[in-house]
Structures are given as C-alpha cells and as structure tokens.
C-alpha cells in the first residue's frame, strides 16, 4: 500500500513537472523571440517565390557556425561539456561578452543547432553568426552627391554647399534592400530623348525609342534634358560609374517630343504617351508641360492610365499654378520639388492638383557626352547638377517602377495612392496633411516598399 502510494506521488510529481517544463520551455521560446525556426530577418532575405522580382540575396549567416552565450552561473567545465555534447567546437570567445563562436557538425543545420541550444536551460541565448553589411549602397562614384537618394548632410557637388538635413531624402537605400526593380519594368521617358552612348543609359534603354519631332525611331537627345531626367529615374546603377538611378534595374524607353531648342508640340506629347502605352511602358515620366490645358494630352493620359500605366508629371517651375498635363489630377501624379532640407523650393508650382513632392534642387544626373563641349567646357565629365520639378518627377517615376516591379498586380490608381499615402509630411509645421505646395509630402520609398511593422 505504501509502495503504491509512493508510486502515485511520484507519478503526480512527474506529471506536474512535465506541465511546468512545457510552460517553461515555451516561456524560454517566447523570451527569445518565440521562433521555433530562425526566421529570415525582414529586410535581409525574402522568398523569390511567386514571380516576385529580384531581391537582395546572399547568405544571412556564416554556414556551420553559431554564437552562444551561457548563463553567468554556468561554470567553464559545464560549458565545455555542453559544447562537446552538441558535437561542436569552440572557435573563439568574444572578450567581455562571454559569447562563444562555435563550429557545429555538418549533419545539422545552423537553424536546428540554434533551436537546440536555445532549449538548453544553461544557455542565455544562441543565434546564427549573422552576416552584417551596410545598407544597399551602389558603387557609383557620384552617388555620394545624390542627397536625394541618401542625405547624410554631405556635399552635393557644388563647392561650399552642403547637402542640408540628414534624412531629407527619399530613403532609396533602405527600399533597395527590399527590391531593386525588374528589368521587365519599363519607364517611358517622354522628353528630348537620351544619349544612347552614355555609360549610364546605353545598357538601360529598351530600344532606340521613338522620335516624334523628326518622326523616326531614333530618340537621340540633342538637348540634354532628356538624358538628365532619364538618368535620375533609371541610370545604370552599381556599374562603378557616375550616378545611381532610383529604379536600379528597370529600363528606359526613350520617347522624343522636345527638340534641340527645348520646345515641343502638344500633338507630339499626346502621340508619345499613346506610343508609350502601346509599347510596353509600365510607368511614364513627363518633365514638361504648359500652363494651358492640353485636351488631347488629357485623352492620351486617360488612354495610358486605363492600361494600368502610372504617370508622373512635373508641376512646373514658375511658382504659379500647376502646369498641364500634371494638373490632370485623376490620371497622373503632379510632382512638386523639395530641396536638401525637405523644404519646398520657391519656384515649384502649386495648387490643389499637387499630389506629391521629391527632391528637385541641385540634383545630379547624367548629360549627353557631347553636352559640356557644346557649352564650351570641354573635358568635363558628362554629369550635371540641375534644379526643377523636371528632376523631381523622375524620382516618382523610378519609385513607381520599383512598386510595379515588386507588385505587378497593382493598378495605376493603387500605385499612385501608395506613393501619396506613404509620403513624409515634411511641411506639416506650416500645412498639416495634404496641401497645395507639397501634396501629401516628400516621397518615402522605404514606407512604400519595406513591409510596415504592426506591433502589439
């Protein structure tokens, strides 16, 4: 009878200990983040499944290694025994932190070993030996002057003029960690054409494009403006040369509607929009306009918009009301200009049609190889610093291309809304919410492209 009672008590104790152990294991799991697998860190490795575009790839952690920290009460002998029990070898110990770098056996994955170690009550934490890296920064040497993409307060290429406010930028580098865009996503740049020999564009153009000035199929730039704005949107990036484009991997479809004097016809612009829509454009960038309504251009915008094409158009640089076609608010994004301090530029046109803004003051971009020589400055590199909403609109076009790359199923209206609603309301001190000067604010590519964390 006594034996039976003893057995009974022992079994009850065993049962209780099992329940308590189960809870304590779970508590440990929750304390360590609650993962039973090492999940990819959100901004590092993402699945390529589902036809989604190119993402940053590469190992997240050192293969065959884990880092482990034992609880302070654990003696060295027990640490050695534990490491041996897991068939691992100590590589080194990080001084002062008491964190051990272990080499693990080949027949177990890093994730499994991390999990197993984290179940050990003597272990404070275990983790993969993650690979750390700087945020995605292209190797283009002039990137350091592109405050619009990453503003660290740096010089922006004009002697004595600093970049202004740290963080007054469109957060391109963080967004590039999520996506650099797809070569299948096409930005039609409707302007004065492009310099097809320019190192920033020669590998980025889809074709020789269309010239509605000379009515042929060679949109060669004889002004310089078209090369500049196309480069802002999608210059060849990470090519060890010049500048970076907003839409890193996307391509340009050049359409020439402006002649060498800087003038163009409404009919050419309307035709250019239609041609872009019929020839594979996903996004249209328009850095030109008129103070007069352009009915045929409006109809062309409707044609393109109905085919899912996102259109960004510059608001104008006269400090007056918004130019057309930007003012056709239902079909395109009207883009105002900010500077390196996130302030509105005084010359940026304004009105209720302004949707959004992007840097447009002292923006660096490519110009045709012949450009500086024609201006009497032979030997200069083919890049220039320019200002205007012409420079702002291609930032929006590049962002729209990245969004279309990442989520091809989005409609034009959805992309436009994402760009609007994820903006930073940088002039909220003077005009809270959407206003006539900067619209919803300066674009923020990070918010638009990197998943937004919803926490408890």
């Amino acid at each position, binding site marked *: 009878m006594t034996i039976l009672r003893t057995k009974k008590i022992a079994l*009850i104790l065993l049962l209780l200990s099992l329940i308590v152990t189960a809870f304590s294991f779970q508590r440990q799991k929750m304390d360590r983040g609650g993962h*039973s697998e090492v999940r990819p860190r*959100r901004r590092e490795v993402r*699945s390529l499944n589902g036809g989604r575009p190119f993402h940053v790839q590469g190992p997240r952690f050192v293969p065959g290694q884990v880092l482990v920290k034992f609880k302070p009460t654990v003696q060295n002998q027990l640490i050695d025994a534990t490491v041996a029990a897991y068939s691992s070898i100590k590589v080194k110990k990080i001084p002062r932190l008491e964190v051990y770098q272990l080499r693990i056996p080949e027949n177990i994955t890093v994730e499994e070993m991390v999990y197993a170690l984290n179940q050990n009550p003597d272990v404070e934490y275990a983790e993969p030996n993650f690979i750390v890296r700087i945020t995605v920064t292209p190797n283009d040497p002039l990137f350091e002057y592109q405050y619009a993409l990453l503003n660290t307060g740096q010089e922006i290429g004009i002697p004595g003029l600093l970049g202004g406010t740290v963080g007054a930028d469109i957060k391109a580098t963080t967004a590039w960690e999520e996506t650099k865009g797809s070569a299948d996503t096409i930005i039609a740049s409707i302007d004065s054409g492009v310099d097809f020999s320019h190192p920033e564009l020669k590998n980025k153009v889809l074709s020789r494009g269309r010239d509605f000035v000379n009515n042929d199929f060679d949109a060669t730039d004889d002004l310089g403006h078209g090369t500049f704005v196309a480069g802002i949107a999608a210059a060849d990036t990470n090519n060890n040369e010049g500048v970076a484009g907003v839409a890193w991997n996307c391509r340009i479809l050049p359409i020439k509607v402006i002649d060498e004097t800087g003038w163009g016809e409404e009919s050419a612009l309307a035709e250019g929009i239609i041609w872009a829509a019929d020839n594979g454009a996903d996004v249209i960038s328009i850095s030109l306009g008129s103070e007069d309504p352009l009915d045929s251009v409006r109809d062309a915008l409707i044609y393109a918009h109905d085919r899912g094409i996102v259109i960004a158009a510059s608001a104008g640089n006269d400090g007056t009301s918004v130019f057309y076609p930007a003012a056709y608010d239902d079909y395109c994004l009207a883009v105002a200009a900010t500077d390196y301090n996130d302030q509105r530029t005084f010359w940026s046109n304004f009105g209720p049609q302004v949707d959004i803004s992007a840097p447009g003051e002292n923006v660096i971009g490519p110009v045709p190889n012949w450009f500086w020589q024609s201006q009497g400055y032979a030997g200069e590199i083919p890049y220039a610093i320019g200002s205007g909403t012409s420079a702002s609109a291609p930032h929006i076009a590049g962002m729209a291309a990245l969004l279309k790359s990442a989520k091809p199923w989005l409609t034009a209206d*959805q992309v436009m809304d994402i760009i609007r609603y994820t903006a930073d309301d940088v002039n909220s001190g003077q005009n809270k919410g959407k206003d006539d000067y900067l619209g919803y604010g300066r674009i923020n590519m990070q918010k638009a492209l990197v998943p937004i964390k919803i*926490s408890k």
Partner: protein
Amino acid sequence: MKKRLRWLIVSLLALVLFTSPLVIAQTRPQAASLSRFQPGLRFDYFSRTVRWSNDETTSELTSYIGSLILGIEFRPRFSLAAILGFSSSAFDNVMFSQLPISIDFGGGGISSYVLGGEINACLLFGPPFGIDIVGQFLAYLGANKEWDVPGLAVSGTVEGKQSWMRASIGPQFVYREFKGFSPYIYLSFDYVWGTFTMKETIQTLTGEEKKEFRGKGVFGVALGADIDLPANIRIKGEAGVYPFEGGVDYSAVIKALISF
C-alpha cells in the same frame, strides 16, 4: 494532399465514434449502462509551428483556450463531449506582402469563440493497462481585430481575421492499477490548419490577402493523468510535445469534470 489528410482525420474520428460502442461491448462484460452527465471546465494551451502555404515561411501559433465541457458518458468508458470556449490566438511575425502596402504583422492575439468535440472510447479495459481511443476536434471560429498602420501620411488600418482547426486522434495507454489515479501516455496524430486574412484600408487604397497554413508536425506524444476526487470530480492534467523537422512544439491541458 491536405484535403485528403483532413478527410482521413474526419473519417478516423467518425470510425471511432461509430465503432467504439461495439468494441466496448466485445471487450468487457455489459455493465449497467446508465448515462452520466459530465460538465466541466477546461484550459488548453498549445503552440504550433505552422508553415504558410503561399511562401513557405513559418510562424508560431500560440493559443490559450478556456472552455466549458458538456460531456455525456453513455456507458462506462465511452463518452462524448462538446467543447464551447473562448480563445486568444496569436501568431508571431507574419508577412503580408500581397497587400498594396506590405505588412509585417506581429500584432498579438485575436480573441474568438472555440467550438469542438471530444470522444473517448475504451478499446481494452483490463488491469494493469487499458487502451482508449481519444479524438478531439477544435475549431477557432475567428473574429476580426483592427490595427492602425503607423507612419503614413493619412490614417489607415489593417483588419485581421484568423480561423483554424485542430484535430487529433490516437491511442491512450492508461495504467489503471492505482486507485483514483490513472496516468497515461497519449500518442496522437495531430493536425492543425487554417487561414489568416488581412484586409488593408488606407483611404481609397484597399486590399486583402488570405494566407493558408498548416502545422509542421503531425504527431504528438503527451503524458497525463486522471485524478478522481471525492464527489465525482475528476481532474485531468496533460502535457504534450509535437516534434517536427527542426524543432518541437508543446501543449498542455488541465480539465475538471464532475459527473452526475
């Protein structure tokens, strides 16, 4: 494949339900077959690592369930019970990347009603060991919960709705030599599946993404005991583990029943 598995579980439960009385009749002498009403309370905890079907990532589902049990013991060692409860279920990070603005969700638990049923049928009754077949089905019905989307130029929300089902069935080996105390080991086929839908509404921008999931492991082992107290009260405690490739999940149950 998943559908086939679900049908298999349902079929097994049905098989147990309909054949258990026959088995009981064959394995032990007829007892006075007076039905007994067995109401009770029950608390469940379980964590399950689940795999999302559309992107093959994993998350952990953690659920706490408090429920009422309305059981009937039709004849000795054959009982059916309905479970009516309330649960808070939470996933850790879940990525909704098909929404217009992608969401990395870690918003905590969503509370909802739980309905279910349980069957316990004795296959072999005889000292020192007995074998029962135990099956259980739980359905977390899902309720909507809303969160603000932070950091936007305009106000916006996401609304999440989870629903899941859990079915388990397997033999329970009971040691019956102790008076009023019956420890057991329960080997179960345990399957969890469900959906998590997230709806995004940011002014004119709307989108919805539905993700399906299923538990990574399908087998579990639990240790537990039934403790008979005076006044026809029975306490049950159980702790289980559910191994899967690369890890293990846990569960715990505490149950109190009173028989009339």
